[in-house]
């Protein structure tokens, strides 16, 4: 106190010395994300920003998917059975307590599901997974819950993996900053703009994870995130750009994202199938791999991963053939298709790492075969508005890059909204396809697989879009931990999956 | 050189009556009465054609403000200014502009009163352009003539102010003031910034021009020897008021106001006879013009002050032929004040 100057200097020295070694305790892990979660409310976890921190860490659903196999596994429900076409019964696990000490019971589950489906809350989970359909939930007894749907819903258990369970003390009509869950970690502290701190929950029902506390921080620049891992300031950076990967710290992983060129097949000249085929032939996917795209990405024929049920291996993989593309265009031109009409190629600012180059390359390739493509960039809000119904009247033909992640393992979250005549962003109105989609959504087992395959074949026949890639992500992983990123890493970073060296 | 005879009234080119200029400091309101600096506080005099009236006083006595108020460069707070028989006190800026050709001004610092980005020709021609003197050729002719008049070589017309010497700059300023054939020229410390030898040249020029053009000067200065040299009549100012006004000879021979006497004795004299003689020195600071002393304003520094001076303000009255002063000491010789003079 007598020498404040010395004290300050000493403090500076200490801070400088500590700067490189933030993780003093070995059981602490720091994870650097691209953006801060906006809400840790249990019904908002379907948004990736929130899910990465909350899913599987703070909250659990009744079911969960195995990150490696994609199979559905018990979580808070120890088992489930389909009572009849419209009715499912879930048996709850015993001995589970919420972070506030209250026990898990059917009332809490009923309350959580109803709150998630509450129309007065704009729950991300409801809008993403429960669009359309009525769900009646009842507690058969303290440990059993029965859900009745208005139409057959064969994948209800899968949907339940996304509904986070919380106690009845959470207000029904009001979104919360966060709530008690059943997960292995409790939200300890959330300093807005700075960090979210999770600490281990001693009453966790599963295996006790190695990591005692997890600190989530965020930096917008990929190069900074990567640098933080190499400098030991962070242990894990789940999503970095390909150019920031170093041999020592970088790991590639399929991130479940798939991309397509979403073509406006309602507006000339894209209303002609030959033009759409020419576009499919004009893209040199092989040249993009290893340059503007990571070489780990895979060329796609469908908008969901091959691990998804009903993925079809009979859909054509379009190969680069500019000559054929030009020929198709000439043919169409001879028939009076206005191939010179300008086509807007609309990119979303900051869509994914490397999106700018990705769009530019495609624009150049399309121009090369003779299409009049104009690249334009818009904000997310604008693109979303343009991509969903009602579509603008009197618009020019539009092309979007659509990136979609279906981690649920079932095409029902992909196809009806994109290709069904009722789909929010669908430009297709084909009664035959509608029928196939409806069948598939209601079917189970082999019938479901076959129905999806038939739908995929029908979609190829119509050729509404050009499929591009199954993308890969990169993670930087520090020396101190062991972690294998999976296709779920983009939507949830589970501290329990991290082991310490 | 003093015109002994009283000229007819029509010869008065400028008449100033009870002129006041107060600079407000605080508006009247909750905090008490308003405060203001009373820079000029009731000044009355007139100027006749072809005459030089010197205004002398210490710095801060309000003589510069008086000059600027006469020019309507500051708005008078009260009183009346008559130029060429026309009341200009309340004219708007726009209405005032045509009157400006009759009254012009020469400032103390020639360098800063001349636009550094204009050539001498542009400076001198500017008033001619403003008053649309004539076409290009006649304006050029006039500016060349003005240059001749003030004794500047025509070759230097295209130079900028900073390229001239101080005396030459003041000649440019004089040429500009004369461009429109004014009747009155206000010279505000016009030679104070110049070397003594240059001062004489400029003063002589001013006198020559006066004879030639029948100009009237209001010559504002703090320098007694200059004012003695050039003026026909002299007004002595103290704290915003004229305390004595007389013909030059009369004032220097027989100063009637203690302030004038003090001023003269404190000034360095070139007269060797005065050297060594006991000099009355002005003691103390000039009181604040915000709250001037009651009664006679000079009483706080006056060696001859008595009780009465603190109570009543002495009237500005005639103490001799055309000689006026405001002092209680002179009241013995009460004489009626002729209207024509005030």
């Amino acid at each position, binding site marked *: 106190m007598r020498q404040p100057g010395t004290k300050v200097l000493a403090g500076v020295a200490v801070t400088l010395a*500590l700067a490189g070694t933030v993780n003093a305790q070995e059981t602490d892990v720091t994870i650097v994300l691209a953006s801060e979660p906006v809400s840790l409310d249990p019904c908002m976890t*379907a948004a990736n920003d929130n899910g990465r921190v909350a899913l599987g860490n703070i909250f659990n659903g009744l079911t969960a998917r195995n990150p490696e196999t994609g199979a559905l596994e018990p979580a808070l429900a120890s088992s489930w059975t389909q009572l009849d076409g419209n009715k499912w019964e879930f048996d709850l696990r015993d001995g589970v307590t919420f972070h506030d000490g209250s026990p898990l019971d059917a009332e809490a589950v009923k309350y959580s599901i109803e709150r998630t489906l509450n129309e007065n809350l704009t729950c991300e989970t409801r*809008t993403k997974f429960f669009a359309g359909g009525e769900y009646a939930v009842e507690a058969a007894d303290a440990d059993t819950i029965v859900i009745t749907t208005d139409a057959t819903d064969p994948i209800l258990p899968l949907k339940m993996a996304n509904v986070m369970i919380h106690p009845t003390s959470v207000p029904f009509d009001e979104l919360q900053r966060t709530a008690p869950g059943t997960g292995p970690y409790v939200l300890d502290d959330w300093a807005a703009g700075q960090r979210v701190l999770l600490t281990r929950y001693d009453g966790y029902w599963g295996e006790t994870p190695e990591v005692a506390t997890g600190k989530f921080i965020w930096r917008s620049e990929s190069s*900074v995130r990567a640098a933080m891992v190499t400098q030991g*300031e962070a242990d894990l950076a789940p999503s970095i750009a390909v150019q920031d990967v170093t041999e020592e710290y970088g790991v590639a992983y399929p991130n479940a994202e798939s991309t397509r060129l979403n073509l406006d097949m309602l507006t000339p000249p894209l209303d002609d199938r030959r033009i759409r085929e020419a576009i499919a032939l004009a893209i040199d996917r092989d040249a993009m791999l290893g340059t503007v795209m990571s070489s780990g990405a895979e060329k796609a024929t469908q908008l969901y991963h091959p691990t998804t049920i009903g993925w079809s291996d009979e859909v054509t993989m379009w190969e680069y053939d500019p000559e054929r593309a030009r020929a198709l265009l000439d043919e169409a031109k001879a028939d009076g298709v206005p191939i010179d009409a300008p086509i807007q190629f609309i990119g979303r600012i900051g869509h994914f790492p490397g999106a700018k180059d990705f769009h530019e390359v495609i624009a150049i390739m399309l121009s090369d075969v003779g299409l009049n493509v104009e690249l334009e960039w818009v904000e997310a809000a604008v693109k979303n508005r343009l991509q969903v119904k009602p579509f603008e009247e009197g618009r020019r033909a539009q092309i979007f890059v659509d990136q979609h992640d279906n981690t649920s393992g079932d095409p029902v979250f992909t196809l009806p909204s994109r290709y069904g005549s009722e789909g929010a962003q669908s430009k297709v109105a084909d009664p035959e396809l509608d029928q196939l989609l409806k069948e598939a959504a209601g079917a189970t087992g082999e019938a479901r697989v076959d129905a999806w395959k038939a739908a995929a074949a029908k979609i190829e026949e119509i050729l509404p879009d050009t499929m591009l890639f199954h993308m890969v992500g990169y993670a930087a992983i520090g020396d101190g931990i062991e972690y294998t990123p999976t296709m779920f890493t983009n939507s949830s970073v589970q501290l329990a999956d991290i082991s310490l060296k | 050189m003093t015109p002994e005879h009283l000229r007819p009234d029509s010869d008065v080119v400028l008449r100033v009556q009870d002129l006041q200029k107060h600079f407000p400091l605080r508006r009247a309101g909750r905090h008490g009465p308003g405060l203001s600096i009373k820079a000029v506080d009731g000044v009355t005099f007139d100027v006749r054609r072809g005459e030089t009236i010197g205004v002398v006083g210490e710095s801060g006595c309000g003589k510069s403000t008086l000059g600027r108020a006469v020019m309507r460069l500051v708005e008078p707070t009260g009183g009346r200014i008559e130029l060429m028989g026309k009341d200009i006190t309340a004219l708007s800026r726009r209405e005032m502009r045509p009157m400006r050709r009759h009254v012009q001004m020469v400032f103390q610092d020639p360098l800063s009163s001349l636009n550094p980005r204009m050539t001498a020709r542009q400076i001198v021609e500017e008033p001619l352009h403003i008053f649309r003197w004539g076409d290009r050729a006649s304006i050029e002719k006039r500016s060349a003539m003005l240059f001749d008049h003030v004794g500047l070589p025509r070759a230097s017309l295209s130079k900028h102010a900073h390229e001239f010497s101080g005396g030459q700059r003041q000649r440019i300023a004089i040429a500009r003031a004369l461009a429109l054939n004014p009747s009155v020229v206000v010279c505000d410390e016009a030679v104070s910034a110049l070397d003594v030898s240059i001062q004489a040249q400029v003063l002589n020029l001013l006198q020559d021009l006066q004879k030639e053009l029948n100009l009237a000067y209001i010559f504002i200065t703090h320098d007694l020897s200059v004012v003695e040299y050039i003026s026909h009549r002299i007004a002595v100012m103290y704290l915003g008021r004229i305390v004595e006004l007389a013909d030059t000879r009369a004032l220097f021979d027989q100063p009637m106001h203690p302030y004038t006497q003090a001023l003269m004795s404190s000034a360095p004299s070139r007269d060797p006879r005065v050297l060594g003689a006991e000099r009355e020195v002005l003691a103390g600071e000039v009181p604040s013009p915000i709250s001037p002393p009651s009664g006679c304003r000079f009483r706080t520094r006056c060696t001859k002050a008595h009780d009465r001076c603190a109570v009543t303000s002495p009237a500005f009255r005639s103490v001799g032929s055309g000689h006026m002063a405001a002092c209680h000491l002179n009241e013995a010789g009460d004489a009626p004040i002729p209207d024509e003079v005030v």
Partner: protein
Amino acid sequence: MLAEFLFRRVFYSCIALLGLVVAVFLLARLTGDPSVLYLPDTATAVMREQFREAHGYNDPIVVQLGRYVWNALHLDFGMSLRQNVPAMDAVLQAFPWTLRLAGVTVLLAMIVAMTIGPLAAYRPGSIFDRIASVLSLAAASTPDFWLAILGILVFAVHLGVLPTSGTGGFAYWILPIGVLMFKITGTTTQVVRGSMISSLASPYVKAARAKGMPENRIIFLHALRNSVISAVTVAGDQTRGLINGAVIVESVFGWPGVGKLMIDAITQRDFAVVQAAVLVTAACIFLLNIILDLIYAALDPRIDLH
């Protein structure tokens, strides 16, 4: 006199603030319906309608504005759509971070500029002047995001002497402040140098020299005092910019300031947060303007506070 000046300025500032809030309110709504951003693309039209209804976006804009102003007068600035916290709380939490960063940066930049500027101006055209000019101009023309990333790569990654980013002790302040200072120091140095050169060429400095006043007295008493006015003007402008958000530096370094908050709120159409942020930063800027005018008046007696 002073009280009257302050009263008048505060009064006008309040009116301006109200105008600003109304302008932001109306303009922000020109940028479109938040429902397209808040709801995933799978959401149905019914869900979108419910969302709009629940948040009052279906009411006429005037009704929405009236409701906002009425609530704001009761110090209720609305809830953040995303974060489920009162918008004002979010802003007031972030604002001090920005203010501290801005304050330290501008102060240091002023000190450096007021040292280099006059030294360069003293002998215009000298080697020192040329070097100082080029360097300050280079500093003023370097993009800050570039500098920020380069700074991290050099000082944190290669040299390892500073942390890459984040908040914490003294070491965490060095890079963000260093990066922000670059441009401000460069600009201010240029301005101080320019105004110093004019002052040194002015008649009263010449007069002072002629009177034989010592050279350092001329520089410090006359010329420098004049240059301070222009330096303060520039620094004021720069501070305004910083208060309004050192967005880029904040997002690169993960600094939890108001600039980052505001840009996120804008792209997310979180109107309540945008409005609250504008209200707070604008109020602070108006305050700064008043303080600057007082500084001017203190430095230059000729400037009238009317």
